[in-house]
C-alpha cells in the first residue's frame, strides 16, 4: 500500500481506496485476511480510529467482512464488485473528461475515434 | 493503597540504612575507642539521631516521588506523619532499652537526661518507666517534626534561596542573642523573672509526689505536645505549597 499524504483526500478515504485497489488487483485475494487496523496504523503511523473508519467504509460496501475473533477478510465476489463499480465510474471519470478536453482542442468525434484506434494499434 | 506502599517503601529503606549505619559506627567505635558496651550503644544512638534528622529534611525528593505517583500533597503529609511516627517509635525503643539496661546493670546510673531530671516523680517505678517511654516518644517526635518542618521550609527554596534563608536565620539568632544579652547585662533586665515560666514549662524545681528533687514530666510533656501541634500545622501548610521546579 502506498499513501500520498499530500493528496486533498481525507486519510480515511485514502485508506479505503488503497485497500480497494489491492482487492481490485488481486493483491488481497478473496476469502483471505487483510492486515488488521492496528497493523496498518502502526506501519504508517496513522490514528487507528482513522484506519477503522476507512475499513468500515468497505465493510459497508460489502467488500470486507469482520469475523469475530479472527480478523477482517475480503468477501467473496469483492473483486468483481470493484470492477463493476469502476466500470461505472470509468464513464464519468475518463470518458466525459476526454470529451470535455477534446472540445477544448476542437477535436470532433471522428478525430477521437481515430486517436483511440491509433492508441490500440501502438499497443 | 498508594500511601501505604510509599510508607512501607520508606520505612524499609530507612531500617535498612539504619542497620548498616549502626553496624559501621558500632564497629568503628569498638575498634578505635574500645568503648564499653553501653557507651558504645549510646554513641550509636546519637548517630541514629543525626542520620534520621538529616534524612528527615529531604523533602523535595519525597515530594517528587509522591506527586509522580499520583499522591496528592495531603497524602504526602499523611505519609510523612506515619513514617516519622514509626521512625520515632523505633528510635525510642532503642534508646529506652539502652537506658533500661544501663539502669539495671549499672546500678541506677545512666546517661539519660530523663532519668536524671524526672525519674522518681511517680511512686511506682513501673509507672516511672512508662512515663519515661512516653516522654521519650514525645520528645523524639517533637525533634523529628521540628527538623522536618525546617527541612520542608528550606525545600521550598532553590539553592540560592536556601543560602539566603540560612544566613537570615543565622543573623536573626545572633541578633537575638546579642540583644538579649544587652538587655540582661547592660540594662539589668534581671527584674523580669523568667524562672517561674521556665519551671512551668519544664516542670523542674517543683515539689513532687515521689519525694526527692525530681521534676514533673507532665509539664514538659504538655509543652512539647503543644509545640508539636503548632509545628504539625505549619508543616501541613508548607507541604501544601510544594511545586515542581523545572
Amino acid at each position: 500500500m502506498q499513501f500520498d499524504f499530500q493528496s486533498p483526500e481525507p486519510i480515511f478515504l485514502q485508506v479505503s481506496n488503497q485497500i480497494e485497489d489491492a482487492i481490485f488487483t488481486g493483491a488481497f485475494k478473496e476469502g483471505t485476511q487483510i492486515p488488521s487496523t492496528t497493523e496498518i496504523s502502526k506501519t504508517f503511523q496513522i490514528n487507528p480510529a482513522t484506519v477503522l473508519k476507512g475499513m468500515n467504509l468497505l465493510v459497508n460496501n460489502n467488500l470486507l467482512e469482520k469475523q469475530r475473533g479472527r480478523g477482517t477478510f475480503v468477501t467473496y465476489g469483492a473483486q468483481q464488485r470493484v470492477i463493476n463499480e469502476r466500470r461505472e465510474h470509468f464513464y464519468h471519470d475518463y470518458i466525459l473528461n476526454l470529451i470535455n478536453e477534446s472540445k477544448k482542442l476542437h477535436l470532433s468525434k471522428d478525430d477521437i475515434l481515430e486517436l483511440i484506434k491509433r492508441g490500440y494499434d501502438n499497443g | 493503597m498508594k500511601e501505604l506502599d510509599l510508607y512501607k517503601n520508606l520505612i524499609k529503606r530507612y531500617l535498612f540504612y539504619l542497620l548498616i549505619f549502626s553496624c559501621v559506627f558500632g564497629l568503628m567505635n569498638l575498634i578505635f575507642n574500645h568503648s564499653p558496651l553501653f557507651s558504645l550503644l549510646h554513641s550509636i544512638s546519637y548517630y541514629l539521631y543525626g542520620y534520621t534528622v538529616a534524612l528527615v529534611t529531604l523533602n523535595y525528593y519525597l515530594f517528587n516521588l509522591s506527586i509522580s505517583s499520583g499522591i496528592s500533597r495531603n497524602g504526602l503529609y499523611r505519609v510523612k506523619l506515619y513514617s516519622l511516627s514509626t521512625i520515632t517509635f523505633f528510635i525510642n525503643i532503642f534508646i529506652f532499652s539502652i537506658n533500661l539496661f544501663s539502669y539495671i546493670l549499672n546500678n541506677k546510673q545512666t546517661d539519660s537526661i530523663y532519668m536524671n531530671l524526672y525519674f522518681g516523680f511517680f511512686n511506682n517505678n513501673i509507672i516511672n518507666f512508662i512515663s519515661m517511654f512516653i516522654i521519650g516518644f514525645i520528645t523524639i517526635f517533637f525533634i523529628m517534626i521540628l527538623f522536618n518542618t525546617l527541612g520542608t521550609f528550606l525545600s521550598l527554596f532553590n539553592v540560592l534561596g536556601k543560602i539566603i534563608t540560612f544566613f537570615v536565620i543565622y543573623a536573626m539568632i545572633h541578633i537575638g542573642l546579642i540583644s538579649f544579652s544587652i538587655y540582661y547585662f547592660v540594662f539589668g533586665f534581671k527584674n523580669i523573672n523568667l524562672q517561674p515560666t521556665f519551671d512551668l514549662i519544664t516542670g523542674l524545681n517543683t515539689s513532687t509526689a515521689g519525694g526527692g528533687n525530681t521534676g514533673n514530666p507532665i509539664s514538659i510533656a504538655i509543652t512539647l505536645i503543644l509545640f508539636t501541634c503548632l509545628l504539625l500545622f505549619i508543616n501541613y501548610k508548607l507541604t501544601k505549597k510544594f511545586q515542581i521546579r523545572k
Partner: protein
Amino acid sequence: MDKLEIKNLNRNFKFGKQKVLKNINVSFLSNKIYGLFGENGAGKSTLMSIIADYNFPTSGEVLLDGENVHDNDNALSKIYYMNQNNMYPKNEKVAKTFKFVQSMYEGYDVNLQNKLVKEFQLNTKSRFNKLSTGYKSIMKIIIALCVPCEFIMLDEPTLGLDARNRDIFYRELIESYTDHPRTFVISTHIIEEIDKLVSDVVMINNGKIILNDSADNIRSKAYSINGPADLVDEYVHGLDIIGKESLGQYETGHIMGRLPEKEIPSGVEVNKMELQKLIVNLMDRSEGD
C-alpha cells in the same frame, strides 16, 4: 474518565505580571490522541504540569469528570505526566525504579514493561544518571505506557531517540492505545511525525490557545494555493489567509476555510496544507499579538 476540562486557566511568571498562560479554556475527551503544539516557551509544559498538579495556576481550575484535580488523590491517580524533569532518584538502577512505580500503581502492566525493555534494548541494571538522553526518555516512555491511568501526557517523548527507537515508540503507542483505549496528549516539536497519528490538535502560542479542533476538520479546511501571483491573489481574495510565500512571479497562499465556489483558474494549483505547515503559519501569524 469522561473528560478533562480546563477553565479560565491563568498562570503568571514567577516574578512579574507577565502571564505564561492566559485564560486557557480547553477540554480533553476520552480515548483520543491529542497533539499539543507550540513553540518553545509557549506554555505547553506549564499547562501539562498544572493539569498533573505539579504546579499551581494563578487562577482557574482543572476538572476531571467535574472534580477539581488539585490535591485530589482520586483524580490524580488517573493522570500521568511524562515530563522532562527527573522525578525518580537519579542514582537508582532502572529496575529498582520500575519496581517502585509498580508498587505505586495497582494494575501496572508488567508484561508490557518487560516486552518494551526488550524491544528498546534498555539496560535495566544501569543507573538512571548513567543513561544517555535517549534512554532516559525510553525509561520514562515505558513507565508512561504501563501505568493504568486514563489520561497520559507525554512531553517531548522522542527527545534524544534515534530513528529506530522513535519508530518502535510510535508502534508501541498505537498498539497500547488499541489494546487499552485511553487519552494521550503528546507535546512535540517534530509535528510531522505525529500529524497523522493525532485525532485532535491543540495549539498554544504566547500562552493562548490559537487552535483547538479535530485533525479531520483542520485537514478539510487548510489549503495551499499556488500559481502566478495575480491569479492566486484574486482567488484567495476575501478568504482567511494565514500565510504567503513568493518566488518570483509565483506565489503560494495558505488559507483556512472552505474553498470559494468559483472555478480554479488554470495554472493555479490547490493542495492540502500539511499540519506542519499550517502550524508554522499560525504561529507566525500570531507573532504580532
